[in-house]
C-alpha cells in the first residue's frame, strides 16, 4: 500500500504502481463478463454496418456484373431495382448499336417476381435477356443459360436452399418454367437474380416486344463521353453510366435501412457504455476505502480519474479487438450457413467501431469518476 500511495500521490519520478491493471485483473470473472458484454456490443455494431454495406452491394449485383458501361432507360427511370414497366421498344437496341462509339447492346426486362417454391414464396429479381447479347448470366455454376422460351436459370444459392437442380421446374406468374442452369455470384438476401429470355419476361408483363433497359458497351473510349453522346442523340430517354445507376440503387437501399440501423447502433453503444460503467463503478465502490486512503494522503482527483478512465479504456480497447474479431467470425459463419447474406467491412466501418469503443469507454468512465470526485477522504477513518 505504501508504494501505491507514494506513486499515486503524484510526485514526478515516483514509482508508479499499475493500480488500474491490478484492480482489473483482481476479479478475472467480472472482467471477463464485462469484456463479453462490450465485445458483443462492438461486434453487433460491426455486423450491422457490414450487413448494410452487403445489402448495398448485393442490390447492384446485376449492374456491376452485366458487362455494360451505359444503361439506356425511359425518362424518369433511374433505378434498376425500381425500373418500372418495360416502356422501351426492344428494337431500340439495334438503333443504339448503330450509334458511333457503341460496340454491343442488349435489351433487357427487369422486374421483381415471386417464385413459388414448395409452400414458400421467394422474392427474386427477374431479368429477361436476349441470348448472346449483353445482359446474359455472367457465370454459371451448372447447366446453361436459357436459350428459348420456357427456360429459366436461377441463382445457385437460392437453388440449393430450395433443392432446385437443372431439369427441375418452377412456377413463375402462372407459367411453369424448366430450370436449365444455376447462376453463380447472383445471390442476394433480398432478391436473388433469376434469368429468362427477354421475350418471356416481357410477355409476362403483357408487352412481348418491349424492354425496360438497353445495355450498352462502348468501343473502349470514355464511358462518360459515350453516355453524354447518346443522351444528346436520344433526349427523350435517360442515359446513365453504370456508376450512376449503381449509385442510385445503393442510395435507395441505404435510405430504407439507415434509420432502423441508427436506432440499433445507438442502443448497442448505450449497452456498451453501461457495461463499462457498471464494471468500473464496481471497482470504485468496492474499493472506496482504498481510494479514500489515497485521497487522504494527497492523491488528486485527476490522478484517480486517470485510474478509472484507464480501466474503462482498457476494457473498451480489449473489447474492440475481441469485438472486431467476433464480428468477422460471426459474419463468416452466417455467410457460410446462409450464403444469401453478405457482410462487407469497409475501412470506414473500422473507424466507426473504434470511435464507438472509445465513446463507450469514455462515457462508461463518467459515472465512477463522479463517485470518486465526491468521495470523502475522511470516510476511511470512520470504520
Amino acid at each position, binding site marked *: 500500500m505504501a508504494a501505491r500511495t507514494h506513486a499515486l500521490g503524484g510526485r514526478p519520478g515516483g514509482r508508479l504502481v499499475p493500480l488500474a491493471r491490478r484492480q482489473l485483473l483482481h476479479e478475472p470473472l467480472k472482467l471477463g463478463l464485462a469484456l463479453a458484454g462490450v465485445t458483443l456490443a462492438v461486434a453487433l455494431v460491426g455486423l450491422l454496418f457490414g450487413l448494410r454495406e452487403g445489402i448495398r452491394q448485393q442490390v447492384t449485383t446485376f449492374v456491376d456484373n452485366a458487362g455494360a458501361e451505359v444503361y439506356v432507360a425511359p425518362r424518369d427511370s433511374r433505378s434498376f431495382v425500381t425500373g*418500372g414497366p418495360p416502356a422501351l421498344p426492344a428494337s431500340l437496341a439495334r438503333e443504339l448499336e448503330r450509334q458511333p462509339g457503341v460496340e454491343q447492346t442488349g435489351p433487357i426486362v427487369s422486374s*421483381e417476381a415471386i417464385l413459388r417454391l414448395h409452400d414458400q414464396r421467394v422474392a427474386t429479381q427477374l431479368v429477361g435477356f436476349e441470348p448472346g447479347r449483353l445482359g446474359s448470366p455472367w457465370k454459371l455454376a451448372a447447366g446453361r443459360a436459357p436459350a428459348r422460351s420456357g427456360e429459366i436459370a436461377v441463382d445457385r444459392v437460392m437453388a440449393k436452399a430450395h433443392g432446385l437442380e437443372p431439369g427441375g421446374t418452377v412456377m413463375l406468374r402462372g407459367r411453369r418454367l424448366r430450370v436449365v442452369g444455376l447462376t453463380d455470384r447472383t445471390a442476394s*438476401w433480398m432478391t436473388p437474380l433469376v434469368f429468362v429470355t427477354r421475350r418471356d419476361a416481357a410477355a409476362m408483363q403483357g408487352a412481348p416486344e418491349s424492354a425496360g433497359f438497353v445495355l450498352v458497351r462502348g468501343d473502349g473510349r470514355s464511358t462518360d463521353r459515350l453516355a453524354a453522346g447518346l443522351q444528346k442523340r436520344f433526349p427523350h430517354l435517360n442515359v446513365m453510366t453504370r456508376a450512376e445507376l449503381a449509385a442510385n440503387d445503393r442510395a435507395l437501399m441505404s435510405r430504407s435501412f439507415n434509420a432502423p440501423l441508427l436506432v440499433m447502433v445507438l442502443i448497442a453503444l448505450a449497452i456498451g457504455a453501461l457495461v463499462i460503467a457498471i464494471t468500473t463503478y464496481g471497482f470504485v465502490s468496492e474499493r472506496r476505502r482504498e481510494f479514500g486512503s489515497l485521497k487522504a494522503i494527497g492523491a488528486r482527483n485527476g490522478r484517480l480519474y486517470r485510474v478509472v478512465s484507464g480501466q474503462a479504456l482498457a476494457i473498451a480497447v480489449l473489447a474492440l479487438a475481441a469485438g472486431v474479431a467476433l464480428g468477422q467470425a460471426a459474419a463468416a459463419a452466417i455467410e457460410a450457413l446462409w450464403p444469401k447474406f453478405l457482410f462487407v467491412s469497409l475501412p470506414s466501418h473500422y473507424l466507426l467501431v473504434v470511435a464507438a469503443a472509445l465513446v463507450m469507454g469514455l462515457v462508461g468512465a463518467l459515472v465512477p469518476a463522479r463517485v470518486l470526485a465526491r468521495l470523502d477522504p475522511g470516510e476511511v477513518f470512520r470504520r
Partner: protein
Amino acid sequence: MSGTVPIAWRNLSRQRLRLALSVGGVGMALLMILALDGIYAAILDRVTAYPDNQGAPLIASQRGVSTMHMSSSTIPRRAVERLQRDPRVDRAEPILYSTLLLGRERQAVSYVIGFRGGGGPWEIVDGRGRPRAGEIVLDERTANRLGLRVGSRVGVLGSDLRVVGLAGGAASVLTGLAFVDYDTFARAAGTRGSASYVLVWLRSGDAGDVARALERDHQLTVQTREQFSGNERQVISDMSTGLIRGMLMIGIVVGLAVAAVSIYTATVARLGEYAVLKAIGMPNRTLYALVSRQSLLTVLAGLGVALALVTVLAVGVPLLEPSVNVAVSAGSVARTAGAAALIALLAAFVPARRVARVDPASVYRR
C-alpha cells in the same frame, strides 16, 4: 417468500447508482429486442396498408401472382372486361401498379397506383384524393421526404405531375404510396389496355367461395382481401425471418452478458454479508434463491425501463424519420418478457456458484 425478498431487494437498493446502471444495461439490451421487433411489426403492418384499405373484398391478379409487394401482375383488357360482365360481380375496377422512383433531385421509392373509380387513397390529409390527368396524390411522408406540397410538381412516369393531394397512413420504411389517374399511368407505361390488378365487389355470397369460383372461371388468381394481405406479410416474413431471429439472438446474448455482469458485481460486493448468512445457518439453496431473486428483480426493472423507452421510440422515431414506425404489440412484450426471464435465470448462475463457495468462517477473519 418470508425474509428473502427484503434481503434481495436491500442488496440491490442499497447502492442505487449500481442498481440504476444494472437496470439501465439490462433495459437497453431488452430495448434492442423490443425495438427490432417493433420496427419489423410496423413494416408488416404497413406493407398491407393498400390491400387492407382499398375497399374491395376481392383482389384479382395475373394467374400465379398473389401479392403486390415484390411482384408485378398483368391482366389483359379482355380478361378485365369478362370479369366486369360476370353476374356474380357487382363492380370490378382495374388498377395499374408499379414500384417507381419519384422525384429528380430528391428521390423516393413509391408504389404508384393508377385508378379510376375504386382503389384510390382512403385518408386525405390535404388537398383532394381524386387526381385527374397530369395530377398525382402522394402519401404525406413521401411528400415530406421530397420537399413537396399540394401544388408542387414531381417527375414520374416520364411526366411532371402536379401534386393535388396528400394521403395519410400509406407509407412504410420500404416504400411510399402514390395515386395517379388510370389513363395517365396507362399512357406513360404503354400498357395497351391491360391492368395490373382488378378490385372486385360482389353482388352477394361468401367472399371466399366466390373468389374460388371466379379463379376457376377466369383463369386468374382471385383472393379475398385477407388472403392477399396474409400473402404480403408472408413474403416479407419469409425474406427476413432468419435475419430477425439472428438479431433477436444477439439481443438476448447481449442482455445476458449485461445482466450477468450486473448481478455478479452486486453479489461480489456483498460476499461478506452472504458469509454472515451462511455462518448463521442459511443453506446454499436459500442463497441461490436470494441471488436469483436479485437477478429477477433487476431484469424485471430492466424490462420496465425497456418498455418505457420503446414507447418513447414509438413516438419519437417517426418524428425524426417519418418512414420508420415502431409498433409495440402484446406478443412482442410477451416474447421480450420470456427472453428477460431466461436472461434472469442464466445471469444468476455464475454469482450463485460464487456465493456457494463462500466460507462462513471468513466472517471471523475480518
